[in-house]
């Protein structure tokens, strides 16, 4: 078993020289994982852009069904949660775990608000009979373009996958909050919360591009 030892307050695995060496390696690992997240969502964005240029009117018709005001509120909520997330890390760097827990709590709360708003958006669409792809029932919606389901296929895939990542982010933040309450973090050791923070900011970054793409430009 790879045992570990304490170096200036940080538990360092044997194969690292000291805590900074471990910290820099962990950060690089986190950034590599973020690159894969960006590539995965990027694939969806590329698909959307290609089909948007193939069927511009159908996408415009699809976008009319989206309520940009809800999207706008969601963007504000997510930006605020990004702000509180950054504060969470800041407080941990300043050895104030109490404030950090509050900031993280606010972030989770914003995440929950975001999901609730998304829940209303989805149920409203289901109520109108708008489902992804072939499941879209054409009698209720009576679309001008027969393949409107394609647009909503993209809409539900992109916002659904993003929503799933928000949920995963919220679970990670609660886990980090629990560790914070247990007092694991201090100014020399806060890598887990910084990792979760970067993951949360990536989610916000993707929503920043998703909002104009789906709701505005549509």
């Amino acid at each position, binding site marked *: 078993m790879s045992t570990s030892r304490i170096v*200036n307050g940080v538990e360092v695995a044997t194969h690292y*020289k*000291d*805590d*900074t*060496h471990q*910290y*820099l390696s962990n*950060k*690089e690992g986190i*950034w*590599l994982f*973020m*690159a*894969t997240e*960006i*590539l995965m969502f*990027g*694939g969806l*964005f*590329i698909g959307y*852009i*290609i089909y948007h*240029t*193939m069927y511009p009117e159908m996408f415009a018709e699809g976008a009319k069904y989206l309520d*940009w005001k809800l999207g*706008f509120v969601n*963007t*504000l909520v997510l*930006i*605020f949660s*990004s*702000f509180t*997330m*950054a*504060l969470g890390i*800041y407080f941990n*760097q*300043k050895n104030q775990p109490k404030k950090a827990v509050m900031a993280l709590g606010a972030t989770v709360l914003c995440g929950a608000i975001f999901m609730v708003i998304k829940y209303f958006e989805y149920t409203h669409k289901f109520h109108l009979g708008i489902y992804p792809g072939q499941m879209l029932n054409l009698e209720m919606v009576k679309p001008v373009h027969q393949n409107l389901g394609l647009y909503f296929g993209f809409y539900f895939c992109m916002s659904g996958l993003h929503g799933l990542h928000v949920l995963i982010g919220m679970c990670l933040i609660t886990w980090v909050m629990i560790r914070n309450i247990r007092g694991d973090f201090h*100014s*020399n050791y806060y890598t887990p919360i910084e990792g979760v*923070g*970067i993951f949360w*900011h*990536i989610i*916000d*970054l993707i929503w*920043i*591009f998703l*909002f*104009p793409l789906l709701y*505005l*430009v549509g």
Partner: protein
Amino acid sequence: MGTHHSTHNHGAAHSSDSAHHVTPFNVYVKVAVALFALTFLTVAAHSIREHLQPFSALIAFSIATVKAYLVVAFFMHLKYETNMNRAIFISGFLFLALLFILTTLDIYTRITQNSVL
């Protein structure tokens, strides 16, 4: 070949404080306010999109890119990160652009055949 001691030896430990960068509190507040402002700007541009019709998409996405830069540089501290992490982050976008360019090259140079039965 191996006599000289190498300069950039990754194994050696850096001095402890340079690795941990602490961004001052008010920088976070300023960035958050800027982000809120830009979001309002995006929506404002959206509401008057008839006038700036050909560029409305371009404007929306350039504002989004500025917001993205703010989040990445300050909230994610990429501004103070090592060059390697910056390279990793940007490489993701490069390979996406590569996929996009070559795929659209194919899709938009296909000569559409129409059946004339």
